[in-house]
């Protein structure tokens, strides 16, 4: 029995070793012609990055390049590094990364640069010396200010509001929160943040949290959601509590998940950039960098069908965050 097993295994191994060899070499031959771009999201299975991926895939098809899209299944800086180092070993041409954690990821990105792999970041930046360009959809400051300004407009510059975040440890959300608070303190001193609750990136949990917030804070005028599943969750809670119109809901989220609430008047506005364009621009910039068409010091970048983009220093600017509301949300599908 044991001997048979060993024999089987040995032949299996030999077979695997031999039969695959020619395939591998042809793959290598075609691989030298095509540029391979590896796109790293903060986490997979998240509507935001699915939309980014959709844009990236369209651009990849148009440009005729190989696109790799992979990331941790849950936001995890350690896994991000692991994937980047795998890509280094794999020998991709360009890495475009959305950093879950600035310092954590920079080590791995620097290593990639040392091996001759071009690196850009998108969505959220790494350390400046760890990448050539940053495709900047909106700065943390811009997001914080836009959210706070929108909240102030809806609340008449005074009153209580609460924030629902993804998790207490998410780096980008903490960064946004910092800027929200800074803007509040400097411009809207009469507004007060009464609570901050995490929803673990789950819509159902956000709904439960919002329900508790509503009953615990009778003077609450607005719920601000800084992770995308929380926006529809909070909106459903407000609707069920019968406080539509009395308590406003705003947040960072995708149009499709929120259309119904925006149209019903529960959610006032959803703020986001055009995520597909972000993915597309990240891929285009990555390819241009690999081909040498994009160099440090350039002032503009021609993004093909997307048009011209301004470059500030080493940031390629996607444009301002976009406010989706009743008047325009039905035109978008992502």
């Amino acid at each position, binding site marked *: 029995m044991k001997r048979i097993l060993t024999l089987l295994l040995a032949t299996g191994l030999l077979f695997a070793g031999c039969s695959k060899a020619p395939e591998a070499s042809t793959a290598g031959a075609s691989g030298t012609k095509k540029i391979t771009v590896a796109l790293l999201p903060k986490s*997979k*299975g*998240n*509507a935001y990055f*699915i939309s980014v991926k959709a844009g990236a895939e369209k651009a990849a098809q148009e440009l005729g390049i190989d696109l790799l899209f992979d990331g941790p*299944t849950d936001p995890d800086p350690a896994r991000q590094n692991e994937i980047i180092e795998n890509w280094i070993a794999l020998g991709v041409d360009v890495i475009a990364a959305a950093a879950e954690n600035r310092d954590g990821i920079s080590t791995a990105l620097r290593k990639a640069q040392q091996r001759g792999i071009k690196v850009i970041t998108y969505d959220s930046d790494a350390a400046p010396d760890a990448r050539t360009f940053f495709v900047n959809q909106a700065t943390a400051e811009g997001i914080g200010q836009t959210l706070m300004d929108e909240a102030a407009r809806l609340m008449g510059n005074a009153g209580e509001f609460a924030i629902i975040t993804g998790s*207490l440890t998410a780096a980008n959300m903490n960064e946004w929160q910092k800027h929200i608070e800074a803007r509040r303190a400097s411009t809207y001193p009469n507004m007060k943040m*009464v*609570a*901050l*609750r*995490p929803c*673990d*990136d*789950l*819509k*159902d949990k956000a*709904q*439960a*949290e919002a*329900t*508790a*917030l*509503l*009953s*615990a804070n*009778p003077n609450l005028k607005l719920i601000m959601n800084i992770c995308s*599943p929380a926006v*529809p*969750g909070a909106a*459903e*809670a407000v609707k*069920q*509590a*019968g406080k539509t119109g009395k308590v406003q809901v705003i947040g960072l989220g995708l149009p*499709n*998940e929120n259309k*119904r609430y925006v149209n019903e008047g529960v959610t006032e506005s959803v703020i986001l950039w055009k995520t597909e364009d972000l993915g597309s621009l990240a891929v285009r910039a990555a390819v241009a960098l690999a081909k040498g068409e994009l160099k440090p010091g350039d002032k503009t970048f021609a993004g093909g069908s997307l048009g011209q983009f301004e470059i500030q220093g080493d940031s390629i600017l996607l444009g301002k965050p976009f406010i989706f509301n009743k008047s325009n949300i039905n035109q978008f599908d992502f």
Partner: protein
Amino acid sequence: MMRHFRELSVAGVLVLMLAALAVFAPAFFQPQPLLSLLTREAPALLVACGIAIVIIGRQIDISVGSLFAVCSVGAGLLAAEGWPPLLVLPATMLLGALLGAVNGALVAGLGLPSIVVTLATMVTWREGLRWWRQGQFVDLPPDLQWFGLAQTSGQLVLVLSSVVMVALLAYALRRLAAGRFVYAVGADAEAARLAGIRPRLVTFLTFVALGGLTGLAAMMNLVQSPQVDPKTGTGLELKAIAAAVVGGVAISGGRGRLWGVLAGLLLLACIAPALTHLHVQAYWEKAIQGAVILLAVVGDGLRLRKERTG
């Protein structure tokens, strides 16, 4: 009195907490928000009771969260296909029961350890679902919410039906032969076998029952909002197991009451909203939750220790 020490002490802690809330945050007891809270916890209650039954039978299931997500998405897709709710409900329960049967077959049929089997199925279902759906929300038809009822009556229906369900289960577990078989198998499978019970069949059926209950729970959660988040149910297994254990179900099998589980779940479920009402910052929430779980079991442990030594 001593026989129900754990159940009574948990119920006592719950009453204390509610009393404290009544004094410091009376707003907690507004009828509508309270009803909403109970409605949101009704699905978790069913899952916790299902898990309690499995644990009483000396097994464990940590795959319920993933199962819950698969059932939710499955039900959502069926409903979006235009199936009437009255067909989606049994279909979802069937799906849950089938997935539960997979666990049950591996545990009872092959005699594999349940914690490892369900660890494997937990990862497999969750990742498979993510691969398939890529995290996309499922939009539900508008008439599915609250089964087409008005909101308040829908909520009442959900809460009452979950309570009735738990009462039925509790009755079956204590008074019917099939229920007592679960205790017998959990206490001593070999003795149960000698007494003419088929332990493997009982184990298999507890997993199927848990699966069916999870399917039902997924459906009850589904009708509370117009979209399905495919990540739903993440961490549900820990909540349900914690509720069962805090509520006095012995992890070594053969002991536990469903009303204890009810008290345990309510206690755990009230922590987060209670902190919100008391305006305690969220940073402490997980630590407090852990402390509550530990305190609940430590009390019992101290009492038993005293019995042993004195």
